[in-house]
């Protein structure tokens, strides 16, 4: 194709060329950043937690009867609850724990290595019984689970604890060694925590601190429970669980919710944000396409005489079509190159607002392909019309 003349002609018609270049550039910049934001939000929504989220049910026991003032009564009630929950048909495992996946927060604390440097590590921090890992669906990859004695010991005051931590936390604190058997302590050195086991996966977003993957479990009883249902049964178990618990003890309220519902609550905000972004992207592509159609049509109409002359000089219809498509491709490509720069610049500003929305090559590539396609399709109509211009126009003298 006649790159030279087409390029030189496009430069001559600065305004017409610049219009499409700027339209394409801005569209690419916006589309790329929208995609980036959407990917970031979707990431929050679909992040793997490593747990069996879809089958988990969360229960809160809210005791109000005065009988619950006694420690022994509390312990007995909790143990009874866990037993009854495990016995419900359709339940694979039940546990008492202060941990709730996808809560967006929870409890956290700091630890340091016994005898090590004064570096403190902050981690999510929960109490549970030995069934918690079965219930969540995570594996203990090193060491062992809690045993019954360790669980019973939680009823008393203690300063020595057995803990199980997530692999991410183990790698953080002991990057080159086996963490099992190592001892940690609280910053004021009042308690000692011995690592007896490590679980493979843990992810629960925690606002305020960057500790989404760090977890520390110790044995403890709680008035909150998690139940793992057999696949598909979670929603149906909700009323059954409530009935079972209230029948066991009427001096408390029982609130039951599936983790799936909690998770969708958590994700809802992001879902809401994704919609306008999708909407704007589609509108933008449509508007840009229409703009290119308009500008190219105008350009073709302006050059009818020229087209006729070219045909008179021997250009076939295909040659005219190729000419306009190539010219459009050239201008679109310049726009895309400019757009790449604009996309990155816009993204730098965007990232100050939404951290995770940094742009990456696959997204830029997707935007480039999209705009090339849109540019081509938009120019096709006017280019086809250009090809139909009759050569006889050249001899017309009006």
């Amino acid at each position, binding site marked *: 194709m006649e790159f030279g003349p087409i390029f030189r002609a496009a430069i001559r018609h600065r305004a017409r060329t610049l219009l499409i270049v700027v339209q394409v550039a801005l569209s690419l910049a916006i589309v790329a950043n929208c995609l980036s934001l959407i990917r970031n939000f979707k990431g929050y929504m679909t992040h793997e937690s490593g747990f069996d989220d879809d089958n988990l049910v969360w229960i809160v026991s809210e005791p109000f009867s005065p009988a619950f003032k006694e420690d022994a009564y509390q312990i007995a009630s909790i143990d009874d609850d866990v037993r009854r929950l495990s016995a419900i048909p359709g339940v694979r495992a039940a546990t008492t724990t202060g941990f709730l996946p996808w809560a967006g927060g929870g409890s956290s604390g700091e630890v340091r290595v016994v005898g090590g440097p004064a570096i403190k590590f902050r981690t999510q921090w929960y109490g549970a019984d030995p069934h918690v890992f079965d219930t969540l669906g995570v594996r203990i990859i090193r060491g062992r689970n809690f045993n019954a004695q360790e669980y019973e010991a939680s009823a008393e005051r203690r300063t020595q604890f057995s803990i199980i931590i997530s692999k991410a936390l183990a790698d953080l604190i002991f990057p080159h060694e086996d963490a099992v058997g190592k001892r940690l302590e609280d910053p004021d050195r009042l308690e000692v925590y011995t690592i007896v086991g490590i679980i493979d996966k843990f992810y629960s977003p925690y606002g305020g601190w960057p500790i989404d993957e760090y977890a520390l479990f110790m044995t403890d009883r709680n008035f909150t429970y998690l139940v793992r249902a057999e696949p598909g049964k979670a929603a149906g178990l909700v009323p059954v669980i409530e009935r079972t618990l209230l029948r066991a003890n009427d001096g408390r309220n029982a609130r039951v919710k599936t983790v799936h519902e909690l998770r969708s609550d958590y994700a809802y905000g992001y879902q809401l944000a994704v919609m306008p972004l999708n909407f704007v992207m589609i509108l933008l592509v449509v508007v840009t396409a229409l703009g290119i159609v308009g500008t190219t049509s105008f350009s073709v109409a302006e050059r009818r005489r020229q087209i006729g002359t070219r045909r008179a000089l021997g250009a076939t219809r295909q040659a005219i079509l190729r000419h306009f498509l190539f010219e459009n491709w050239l201008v679109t490509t310049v726009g895309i190159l400019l757009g790449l720069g604009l996309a990155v610049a816009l993204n730098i500003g965007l990232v100050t607002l939404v951290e995770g929305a940094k742009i990456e090559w696959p997204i830029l590539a997707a935007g480039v392909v999209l705009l090339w396609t849109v540019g081509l399709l938009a120019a096709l109509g006017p280019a086809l019309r250009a090809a139909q211009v009759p050569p006889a126009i050249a*001899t017309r003298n009006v």
Partner: protein
Amino acid sequence: MLKMENVTKLYRTGLVETRALRDFSLVVEEGEFVTITGPSGSGKTTFLNVAGLLDAFEEGKYWLDGLDVSRHTDRDMSRIRNEKIGFIFQSFNLIPDLNVFDNVDVPLRYRRLPAKERRERIERAVAQVGLTSRLRHFPSQLSGGQQQRVAIARVLAGDPKLILADEPTGNLDSGMAREIMDLLDEINHGGATVVMVTHNSEYAARAHRRLHIADGRLVDLERITPLPLNRLTGEARQAAVPAG
């Protein structure tokens, strides 16, 4: 070179049918310089469009350089236009976005010639019309006469056998017009057949033959100067006198 037999061209606008060319027959020998005069609306432009394969026709036959070009695909007609015909238009029809070099280049590009040959042809043609110093100028920077000379260079670069000129001096003052006519003579002496539509009787008189169109028909046939000699044999060629 050019032979038309009973060509009829119709224009249909709504329910009205106009015959722009009626039963038109004409023979132009190779190397002739023929002018065509006629009132406006007589069909001069239509004849040029048909002769130059710019437009199709409904009835009749047309031979160009021995080849029957009456019914051809657009692709073939474009190729023939490109290789065998050169146009010179009244309004020059240079492409305003391109400089002189690129304008002359246009038909050569469609012939897919290699860059080196194109450049040689362009430079030679532009030199022949005396505009080498303006090679990189744009049409808006040239006078009317210079623009028409560029158009002629565009024709020369392609070295076609038939040149169709539509009032080539119509938009020029007399001084420039004479220059253009001299150039056309030069081209004709080089062996190309020239068919020129014109209003101007002075220029029309410079031709070998002068034709007149009225109402879509060829009316007068006037031999002005002797036929050109056949370049190979040196013999004068016979003029074919068509009936009607």
